[in-house]
Each structure stands twice: as C-alpha cells, then as structure tokens.
C-alpha cells in the first residue's frame, strides 16, 4: 500500500465527502490549509470501484479529477482505432466508371496514413501516453488522471476501468487547483511524469527520436516542469530566447503582433514544441506564446538545448529545417495580412482558409446536384450544405475550409485532429467521438458520423455488444478521385474547390501566390 495513512482513516461509502481531518492525514494534502478543506468539505469524495467497474468513459464531459489511493486501473480507448474513409479506390476501367463511394471505418493496418510512421503514442489526460500500436496503459496509487477535464472542462480522453478493487479521491477543480500549488503534491506528480511519460513524450517528437537514452536520462532531472493559467503569457515577442518548450498539457497559442492586431500563427497541443526559432536564430523570441487554457510545459534550458544541438547534428538539422519552414510560412502570412484590403474577406475568415468550396451564384441554378453527389458519395450523409456566407457573387458553401487557424483542433482531448503537411485537416483513427471539434468549428463544417461498433459488454464479461458510436468526419475532398464529387456533379460549372486568395485575387486587386506548402 502506497499510503500507509489509509489504515488510520475510516473509509466512508462511495460518494461520501471525505472529512478535512482525514484528508490532512494523506501526505498530498499535508500542507493544505485545514480551513480551505473545511470550507470545501463536499469538493472531495470517496470513490470505491470493484474490479471491472468503469471509472469514466471517453467522450463524456465531466468536471472532476481522480487521484488513486489504492488499487490499479487500466486506461484505454474503447472507440475502434480507425478512421472514416470513402470506400477503396476503384481499379479497372469499368470499376472506375461505376464506382460509388461509401463511408466505412478503415483500420490503420489497412490504410496507413502519411505521418503515421512517426507516431508512437496517443496523448491522453493522464500521466502516461498510450502506445500507438497498443493503446492500453495502467495507472496505480499516487497517480492523478482527468486533470484536463477538471481544469479545462474538456471531454474525458479515455476510458478508465478498475483492474482491481480501487479506492480513489474524486475532486473538483477548486481542490485540484489548490493541490497543484502544493509543493509536495506537485513534486509527486512531476516525478511520475519524469519517470513514466517524459521519455515517450520526447521520443514522440520525430526530431528527437535519435536522442540516446543517456541524454534523455540526463534531461529527465534537468528539465523544468512549468504550469500556466489560462491567458498567462509564456513568452513575449522580442524577449531573449532562453529556453525550448515541449507542451505537456493544454493548448498554447502562438501569435505575432502586426500593425492593426494580432495574427494567430498556430495552436500547439501536447507533443508540440516551440521556442526553437529564437534559440537557433538571433536569440530573441519571434512570436508570443500564451496559455489558451490550463497549460503545462516541459522547459529545456538554452544550455541543455545547445548541448543537444552539438551532440546530435541530425536533431539540429531537423529543427533548423522545421524552424525555416515555420518562419517562411509566418512571413507569407504576414505579407498577406498586410496586403489584403477587403474587410469582408477577413471578417468571413476567408483569409484563413486554404481550400474553399465556392458556388458561383451567377451560374448556380440551385439544383442541389452538388449536395446530392456529396450525400451519394458518403452513405447518404452529405458533408456539405449549400448555404453559407457570400463573397461577391460566390457562396462559400458549408464544407471544410482546411483553415490555417484550425480552431477545431483546440481542445481535442486525445489530439486526434491534425493537419497534414499540406495543411489538410484530417481526423485520426483514435477519435473518441466526443464532438468537441464539431462544436469548435466556427463554420459548422465538421459532422459526427454514426456507425455500429462492437464493444466489450462490461455487464457480461467476455461478451461483446453492438452500440452506435460516433466519429468526427469532415470533407475528404473525395481524394479517391481526381475531383471532388460535388464539383464533378455540378452540371452548370458553378461549383469549384479553390485556393481563396488566388481565386479572389482579382477582387482583392492583387495577385497573391499560392501557399499550398505554408506551415505555421
């Protein structure tokens, strides 16, 4: 038993608030003010789980975190690891002519996507990441999970199940907030992170894969784990660059100031990094970074970063290349922001889009052939709606815009929505169907696709039951074909998939080059 003190505490039934004096006997609550605990007497409750009980389910919304006192729990993704995909590429002349797309779940063994080779783990709201090829992990006494749900009200990222009889503390945000300020508790959580997750976290960044174990062991004790409250500035544009950061929890907004406002360059989530441009370049921060919600980062000092660069030339060249790409993309965005004159173009977010489905209203007879084609291509569920904002004579239809500022990615509890290098937004196999991305998309362009799945029946161990689960879907541009079905099926030459700044360049009174490879 990790907590010998538990023997001295009289346990109450499940759901009963735990008395302040009992809490104070636990080492993690040792330095917390008794008055605070008394005032918040109902904010921490006993939770007892029998072996096999579900503690929380992925996708559910909640507002509490769990701290394991005894017993072991497994954490896993119950949703099938697969993505919704249009039915396979037709082969042969006749098959091509008659091919009809249908949506189905495509497991990764069958359809490995670009960038998957680099992925080793799935980030979740727990001190461990799940292995990409076997997304199950174990949690034990002294470990906290559900931090993001508790602090930021994000959906649960995984399903936690008691593997033995467990006793846990379930706590509300006010208690967790105070606990996180407690040095002893923080030290324990940080130690767990350093021991269990830092290694996989660093290695999941493809650039750091070549680091030797001895160097990671050295970093393990030297890195600083930092926390930031929502809105807090992590670093300012123009400040001296003194560290490199790896996002451990939450979302970081990277932005640049320009005459007339702030330009968001990127949202970074767990596994992303920042600060390399300043360290590799002139020694000053080129952009401001701030916490979008409760954020925790791993800070690597400039000294350690430089040592890493010297010892691992391949890491240096990789980082330099990534930094150059980021800078080029950022410059391009800034140039564009300065030159785009039309307010409505900006107000409608068209500048942020990299691919729009536009309908030329001077040609469109409102026959809905595009919508029918989209529905026919995707199991009868259209991914576009022939309605939206107008820009001049064009209707910007409700269909994924592949935004450069992808708000849909903010808050994904498992980081399942990402962009390819082409900036195309894709939803990864481990999407748990919580629907937060659909809610966050300002243009209503992400849909939830229901499908039947077989899951373990916890009431009848060893058996499976059929349930309806969801996966987020967005316009896939009918990549199986040369042209999206909506465009192909328009008899009036009214539907087009376009790069907006190029397409509207005439209206904007300029010619702006294509930025297909731009990356923030």
């Amino acid at each position, binding site marked *: 038993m990790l907590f010998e003190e538990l023997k001295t505490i009289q346990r109450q039934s499940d759901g009963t608030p735990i008395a302040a004096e009992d809490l104070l006997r636990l080492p993690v609550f040792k330095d917390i003010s008794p008055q605070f605990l008394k005032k918040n007497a109902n904010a921490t409750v006993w939770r007892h789980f029998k072996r096999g009980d579900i503690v929380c389910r992925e996708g559910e919304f909640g507002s509490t975190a769990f701290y394991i006192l005894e017993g072991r729990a497994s954490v896993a993704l119950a949703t099938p690891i697969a993505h919704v995909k249009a039915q396979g590429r037709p082969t042969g002349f006749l098959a091509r002519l008659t091919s*009809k797309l249908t949506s189905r779940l495509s497991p990764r063994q069958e359809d490995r996507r670009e960038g998957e080779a680099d992925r080793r783990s799935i980030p979740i709201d727990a001190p461990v990441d799940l292995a990409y090829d076997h997304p199950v992990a174990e949690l034990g006494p002294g470990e906290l999970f559900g931090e993001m749900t508790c602090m930021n009200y994000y959906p649960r990222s995984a399903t936690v199940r008691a593997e033995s009889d467990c006793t846990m503390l379930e706590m509300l945000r006010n208690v967790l907030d105070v606990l996180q300020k407690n040095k002893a508790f923080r030290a324990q959580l940080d130690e767990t992170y350093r021991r269990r997750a830092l290694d996989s976290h660093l290695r999941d960044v493809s650039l750091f894969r070549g680091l030797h174990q001895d160097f990671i062991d050295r970093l393990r004790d030297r890195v600083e784990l930092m926390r930031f409250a929502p809105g807090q500035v992590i670093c300012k544009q123009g400040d001296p660059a003194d560290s490199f950061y790896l996002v451990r929890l939450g979302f970081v907004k990277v932005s640049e100031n320009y005459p007339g406002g702030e330009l968001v360059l990127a949202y970074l989530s767990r596994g992303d990094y920042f600060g390399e441009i300043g360290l590799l370049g002139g020694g000053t921060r080129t952009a401001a970074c701030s916490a979008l919600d409760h954020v925790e980062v791993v800070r690597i000092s400039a000294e350690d970063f430089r040592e890493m660069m010297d010892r691992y030339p391949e890491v240096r060249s990789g980082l330099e290349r990534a930094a150059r790409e980021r800078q080029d993309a950022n410059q391009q965005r800034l140039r564009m922001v300065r030159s785009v004159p039309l307010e409505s173009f900006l107000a409608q977010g068209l500048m942020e889009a990299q691919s729009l489905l536009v309908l030329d209203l*001077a040609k469109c*007879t409102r026959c809905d*052939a595009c919508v029918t084609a989209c529905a*026919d291509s995707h199991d009868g569920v259209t991914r576009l709606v022939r*309605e939206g904002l107008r820009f001049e004579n064009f209707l910007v239809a409700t269909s994924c815009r592949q935004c450069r500022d992808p708000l849909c990615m903010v808050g994904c509890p498992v980081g399942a929505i990402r962009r390819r290098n082409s900036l195309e937004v894709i939803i990864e196999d481990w999407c748990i169907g919580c629907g937060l991305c659909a809610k966050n998309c300002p243009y209503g362009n992400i849909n939830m696709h229901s499908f039947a799945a077989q899951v373990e029946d916890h009431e009848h161990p060893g058996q499976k039951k059929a349930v309806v689960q969801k996966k987020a879907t967005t316009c896939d541009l009918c990549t199986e074909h040369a042209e999206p079905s909506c465009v192909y*099926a328009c*008899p*009036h030459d009214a539907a087009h998939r376009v790069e907006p700044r190029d397409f509207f360049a005439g209206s904007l009174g300029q010619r702006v080059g294509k930025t297909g490879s731009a990356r923030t």
Partner: protein
Amino acid sequence: MRIDRTHRSWLVASLAIFGVALLVYAAYRVPFASGSMGGTAAGLAFGSIGFAFMIFAALLGARKRMPVYRFGPAQTWMRGHLWLGLLSLPIILFHSGFRYGHGLTAWLMTLLIIVVLSGVFGAVLQHYMPLVMTREVTMETIYEEIGHVRAQLLEEAEELIKQATGVEKKAEVEGGEPDSSESAVAVMDEIAPLRNFYERELKPFLEKPGARGAALGDAAQARSAFAQLRTLVPASLHTTVEDLEGICEEERQLTLQSHLHLWLHSWLLLHIPLSLALILLGAIHAVMALRY
C-alpha cells in the same frame, strides 16, 4: 448553365456540324426537290444523327441521377445537351426536307419543336435568373427550407409583439386591478396602433405572403406603411417597428425567391416529359420507317 466564353468550342463545333449538314442537304435536296427526303441515304443519315443527338441530350437526366459515377463531368454532359439538343432540330428538318408530315411524323415534329423551344427558353432562364436571384434575393435560403424560415419569421414577429405587449401588461400591473390608472391607459393607447397594424396587416401577410393585394408585398407600399406606423407609436417602439420591417422585407425576399425558383425549374415540367415522349415516339418512328 450560363452561356459564356467557355462555350466557344461547342459553338464552333456546332456551327461546323450545321454547316456540313447544310451543304450535304443542299447537295442531296436539289436532285430530289419534289420527292421525300427521309427515305434517301442522306435523309436516313440525318435522321440517325438527329435521333442520336436527341438520345444524348436525354441521357443528361440519367447522368444527373448518378452523380458519383465517373462518366465524365456533369458540365460536359450539360454542354453537350445544350448544343447537340439544339442541333437536332435543323438536322431533323433536313431529314424531313422541311415537311411537317402527317400522323406520327407530325406529332414528332410538333414535339421536337416544343422540346427545343422549351429547352431554349430554359437555357435563357438559367443564363439570367441565377444572377437576378443573387442580386435581388440577398437573404436567400435553401428552397426546401423556405416554409421553415417563414414559420420562424412569424414566431419572431409574434415574440416582438409580445415583448411590446409586455410593456402594456406591466402598466396594467403597476396600475392595480382592475387597471384604471391614467398612465396604464396612456401606454395601451400608445401600443394600440402597433398591435392593430400587426393583427390587420403584418400577421395576415406573414401567414399568407403570396396573397394578392397584400400591401406589404410591395416594397414601396410597405415602406410607406411602416413610416406611417412610426409616426403613431412612441420612439421607444421604433426599434420594434424596425425589426418588424426587417421581417417583412425577408418575407418579401422569400416570396421572390420562391417565384424565381419556380421560373428556374418549372419549365422542366414541360421539357422533360415531352422529351421522353419524343424519344419514345422517335424510336417507334425509326422502327416503322425501317421496317415498312
């Protein structure tokens, strides 16, 4: 489909086909000036080509019903439909030697003319109407949603009136029960014109927007009616009047959209069945002519 510069190649090709057909017709027609053209080799060729054009044009409907099948972009089919469908008329006239005929052939010729003319009419409509709709109906919605949007507009208007009436009720409560205070009566008097206008003018218009003689259906008359209403209600209700005027304008736009939509698509009710009849009778004519 808008007939613009992108149709140039189809136009040139169609003119070329027409020119060649005209030359062939002239060459063959002179020797057989008094006889029947349809039974000659050239006449049969014209008949076959014209019928093939008609079939191709008719296949557009089938193509539209299979939008995901990769039989070629739908717009190519549409261009073919327009130009080859149009060409079928002179080709068939060459086939018949400009004779109307009797019985089945007369029916066929009548159908062909109606189909081609209705098609030309539709093409003209589809060339201009989308632009008109875009310009005139700025609050356009999905056609199938119009009924739903109308119901929402009526609800919004009811809500606005309720809110204004809420002021009235408040005055009643403040004045005691039964309400006899002068201030409450004054408030009721102030609101009465708005309520009357809503009950007598706006509500009937929103419930039956297409009804003939509805003054609010005309933009100028509506402007004048709302301007007059503003003079009758206190300044505190001007925002409500403005909102109601906005609802009225949206309703008019929906009505206009419905009308334009009908214009855009209703001609198909004539064009499509007659086209199918033409193809069917054309096939019968071909079999009968070749057999007998």
